């Protein structure tokens, strides 16, 4: 086998792994977002915060974030906030973002030692499920 064919095959394998992980995580992200939206201090969390709590895979389901930000603007005008938290290489990395695009999400996550936190505990509880979903997606892509 020529080296060029081997290189092309390995590159294709890498693409399949990344794509499979992305698909698997995209399926799990919705469940993760739903669980997070059910957490937090009930009395201290706005409907905008709860309704806009979402998880998505950048590059696959970005519309989820824009819809969440629009929901916040509809409920609490002026309190939506979307910030980039850094960069990643879409050819070699797959991300899941769990967030609520409000100006006060960080405050809710941290005040009183995280008493009203929803994102952090949901991510802790869902980490194994995300790993499993990525592995299942990769397995499906390689069949």
């Amino acid at each position, binding site marked *: 086998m020529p080296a060029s064919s081997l290189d092309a095959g390995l590159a294709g394998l890498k693409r399949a792994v990344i794509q499979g992980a992305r698909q698997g995580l995209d399926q799990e992200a919705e469940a993760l977002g739903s669980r997070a939206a059910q957490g937090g201090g009930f009395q201290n969390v706005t409907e905008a915060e709860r309704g806009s709590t979402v998880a998505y895979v950048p590059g696959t389901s970005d519309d989820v974030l824009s819809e969440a930000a629009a929901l916040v603007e509809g409920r609490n005008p002026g309190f939506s906030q979307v910030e980039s938290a850094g960069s990643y290489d879409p050819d070699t990395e797959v991300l899941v973002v769990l967030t609520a695009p409000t100006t006060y999400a*960080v*405050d809710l996550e*941290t*005040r*009183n*030692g*995280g*008493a009203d936190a929803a994102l*952090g*505990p949901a991510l*802790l*509880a869902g*980490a*194994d499920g995300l790993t499993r979903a990525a592995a299942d997606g990769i397995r499906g892509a390689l069949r």
Partner: protein
Amino acid sequence: MLNTAAIVNAQFSAPAASAPLVAALGAGSASIISAQRLGRDPLPAVPLIAFRQQPTTGASYDMRGVVCQWWVYDDPAHGTTRINPILALLEAAYPRTSITHCHTEVSGIGAEVYDSALGLIGRSCTITSYTRG
């Protein structure tokens, strides 16, 4: 069956057994509290540390992580100059084999935050004790 309560109790008790850590707190061991008291009761002298139990990860047949968080708080006037050494002492209070049948490690240190409810500067320290249920 996984004895979560015993592991959580051990996680909570570890800092009080560390003399350097207790000495670094505002009111000694009285400055070690449950996070449930934050925002409800008068707080002991700062720096203080507050314990919060987090979700236990993993299905029952997997390696599971029993997770807790310590929130280290201090007066904003001190910034993190006293908080950061306490974080190091917290980490030292949890040798990997310190909790029976678990592999324990510091799995995260949070960024500095201003707690708007308490008026204090804080950072979190996440401890995970891995074990098989």
